[in-house]
């Protein structure tokens, strides 16, 4: 897939994302400054991590109002793929492209450490290179990753199979300890209906090189490379 990475002021994991995408696809992704409006020719748009607009007011709130969001909506309406990571997840929920919201971490502190994610379904382009229920490691680095949605929304997400990844122990069990930021039902990432839009809080893009401690994140990007 031809990929583009949207850069809002304050975004800071765009280079990590580019390295991961290029590592799997062999193609350099296009960097899209948030004032650009031409997204033609792209199959996949990625909204990466960082602190867009300083995370002031609410994480992702200001970026969600940016002009490029209209183009992103059009891209999704055309059937294009969209992925949000960390701040990208926050931006997509603020923009209403995904349901729910990301609240302050339950412990009220920034969390920077590896977590374990369970692949809830592997019949999507994002998770297709993982095994079903596979557990993989990913670094997380966020202050506001506590996924919230009302019960009806959560029930709908589960009912429609839209939960992408959950925080689990290395053995694959959901425990309070494994769910450090306090997310509702341990949700780390979700899909929009149709499975072409996906966002998650942790950073698989920072674990695609044995030198950096592992390649657990690589299957995700291999899936997107096809």
């Amino acid at each position, binding site marked *: 897939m031809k990929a583009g990475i949207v850069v809002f002021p304050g975004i800071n994991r765009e280079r990590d994302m580019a390295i991961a995408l290029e590592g799997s696809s062999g193609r350099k992704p296009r960097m899209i400054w948030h004032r650009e409006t031409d997204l033609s020719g792209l199959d996949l748009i990625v909204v990466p991590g960082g602190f867009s607009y300083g995370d002031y*007011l*609410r994480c992702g*709130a*200001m970026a969600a*109002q940016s002009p490029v969001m209209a183009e992103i909506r059009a891209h999704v309406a055309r059937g294009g793929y969209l992925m949000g990571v960390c701040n990208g997840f926050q931006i997509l*929920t*603020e923009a209403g492209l995904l*349901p*729910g*919201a990301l*609240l*302050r971490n*339950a*412990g*009220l502190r920034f969390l920077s450490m590896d977590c374990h994610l369970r692949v809830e379904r592997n019949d999507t382009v994002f998770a297709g290179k993982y095994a079903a229920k596979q557990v993989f490691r990913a670094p997380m680095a966020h202050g506001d990753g506590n996924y*919230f*949605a*009302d019960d009806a929304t959560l029930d709908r997400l589960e009912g429609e199979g839209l939960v992408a990844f959950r925080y689990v122990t290395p053995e694959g069990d959901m425990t309070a300890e494994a769910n450090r930021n*306090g997310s509702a039902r341990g949700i780390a990432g979700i899909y929009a209906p149709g499975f072409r839009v996906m966002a998650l809080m942790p950073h698989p893009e920072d674990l695609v090189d044995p030198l950096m401690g592992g390649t657990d994140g690589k299957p995700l990007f291999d899936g997107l490379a096809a």
Partner: protein
Amino acid sequence: MKAIVTVMLKSGVLDPQGKAIGQALHGLGFPEVGEVRAGKVIELELNETDPARAKARAEEMARKLLANMVIESFRVEVA
């Protein structure tokens, strides 16, 4: 005019910050403290002289940006 927009988490949304503040206040010798809710306040100078219009505009700002209606509610005062 000045508009003051107060944004609070909806009841039903867990407020760990409010809870932590409550616990800290107990620890500091304020046993009379019951439930605590933490929110945001945004004070806006508006180039606008009509209170009703100022209020309507501030409410529009709150709906568009200042509050996230999935988790928050807001109130606006003008002065």
